[in-house]
């Protein structure tokens, strides 16, 4: 069984966001780049499916500039069998462009499962998975919190407001992983050594025309300095009075 895991390289969640010189995008100076945290759950689940089957191949796929290869090597060190880097330099493409470039690469692979994180923690659009599924004509379940495979059928649960939907899916299919799906493993030293010998193929990305344009990026106005009402239990009556009479929230 072939599984493809789509991985995005994103700014570390510790990043203090500053607007770049263009006034539209993140200032990349001093930013540490990591694998999108939700993609770690996607990769882990693909590895578990392969291990349970005792055979198969996990392909890590990522799009972006040369730096993306660091994240792909990390995916190989964690356990992916090979990696494909869709090379695209310049500004970040919109979600449909990404989905189109990924679909062009994935469609001919005849993968049984395509995995993605439920969203990237930079643009938070949560779109590429379902868009990709549409483009390759596959069913898709987003925000997967539980996954079980039985032959050609997957029984999955997806988070919805106040509960979970249970979905039965016939493969091939696309899934986007939520946190809580599993506990991702780290790259071992042995894995890191092995990754150096695993194939990482670079190809040009074909994203097509843009569909959106970013007009500006703004930082939220800083919140006004708060008020320490007091210390310990003695401060409770005053806090309750403030919440009721001043803030009018209780």
């Amino acid at each position, binding site marked *: 069984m072939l599984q493809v895991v789509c991985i995005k390289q994103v*700014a570390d*969640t510790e*990043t*203090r*966001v500053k607007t770049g010189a263009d006034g539209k995008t993140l200032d990349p100076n001093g930013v540490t780049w990591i694998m999108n945290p939700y993609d770690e759950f996607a990769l882990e689940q693909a590895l578990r499916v392969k291990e349970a089957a005792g055979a198969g191949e996990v392909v890590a796929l990522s799009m972006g500039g040369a730096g993306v290869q660091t994240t792909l090597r990390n995916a190989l060190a964690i356990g992916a069998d090979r990696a494909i880097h869709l090379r695209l330099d310049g500004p970040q493409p919109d*979600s449909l462009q990404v989905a189109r470039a990924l679909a062009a690469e994935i469609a001919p692979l005849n993968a049984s499962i395509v995995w993605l994180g439920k969203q990237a923690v*930079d643009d*938070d*659009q*949560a*779109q*590429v998975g*379902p868009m990709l599924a*549409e*483009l390759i004509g596959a*069913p*898709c379940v987003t925000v997967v919190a539980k996954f079980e495979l039985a032959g050609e059928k997957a029984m999955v649960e*997806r*988070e*919805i*407001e*106040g*509960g*979970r*939907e*249970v*979905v*039965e*899916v*016939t493969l091939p*299919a696309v899934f986007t992983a939520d*946190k*809580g799906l599993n506990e991702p493993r780290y790259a071992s030293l042995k894995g890191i050594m092995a990754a150096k010998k695993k194939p990482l193929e670079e190809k040009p990305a074909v994203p097509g025309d*843009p*569909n*959106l*344009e970013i*007009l*500006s*990026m*703004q*930082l*939220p106005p800083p*919140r006004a300095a*708060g*008020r*320490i009402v*007091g*210390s*310990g*239990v003695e*401060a*409770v009556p005053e*806090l*309750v009075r*403030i*919440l009721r009479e001043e*803030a009018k*929230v*209780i």
Partner: protein
Amino acid sequence: MSILVFVEQRDGKLRSVTHEALSEAARLAPALGSPVVGICAAAADPGLASLGAYGANEVRLAANAAFARHDAAGYTAAVVAAAQELKPAAILFPASAIGRDLAPRVAARLGVGLAADCTALAAVGGKLHATRPVYAGKATQTIGFLKSPAMASLRPKVFAAMSPTGATATVVSQNFSYDAAASRARVTGLTAGEGGKLDLTEAEVIVSGGRGLKGPEHFNLIEDLAAALGGTVGASRAVVDAGWRPHGDQVGQTGKTVSPKLYVAIGISGAIQHLAGMSSSRCIVAINKDGEAPIFKVADFGIVGDAFEVVPALTAAVKKLNAHG
């Protein structure tokens, strides 16, 4: 040129996010396009004429027995058919679990861009501009659309629903083609959350606990205060990673971004990822032993103190207030 709005129902009941999206469409209509047309995928009419009160001129019903449950492929077929027929200037969705699942499929089918989880929309020179948080709220971006229709999903609780008018909408049947039997993904059931717990993204009041609570067994303090305030329970990432609370409770960059009326952070020091997810709350209260904790920099009001003493006292005070009005 119309504005098309996805009308969300669950179990045959219209959801309040629908009123929010329709009201926003009605506000945009004079500058962007009219009429405001709703499209609803359902097993039977959930009372669509009532949506006239929230600005819908017409609502289309795409009926299929399979739509008693969320059916992503079927809903996509219904919305795409309405879009191809009406050629709207814009299509709006609630950024709910269903809306965030559905809107990208429709966008891919129509070959247009989509702005997800927007917090503000504007018509500028007859074109839609969408503002949305990025980096879990550490920044916002404003997006323009290069293709038509413009598509956006609207974050729940951010867009105010209008005061309902006496108007009713015309309900018509939507032509579309979909074979549910051929679908390869089928919702077979629902698991209830913890006693039908209100989702964090829809809650007016959130009481969140962090590592300062020292163990999962102390979350009853958080639950009691949340119950007294009529709110729901959230958690910091540290607490979720330690397995004290389910991931659905996590507020922050790898959890939920929330904007309740009142956010109470208890025993949470305030890592940058957590602050990103909750700093758009209207009123933030922090209770923490460490007066230097970063949470106090974003909190409107704080008490420096031991959660094990302060929280029960606060819960008791709120209960007393509720009892006496």
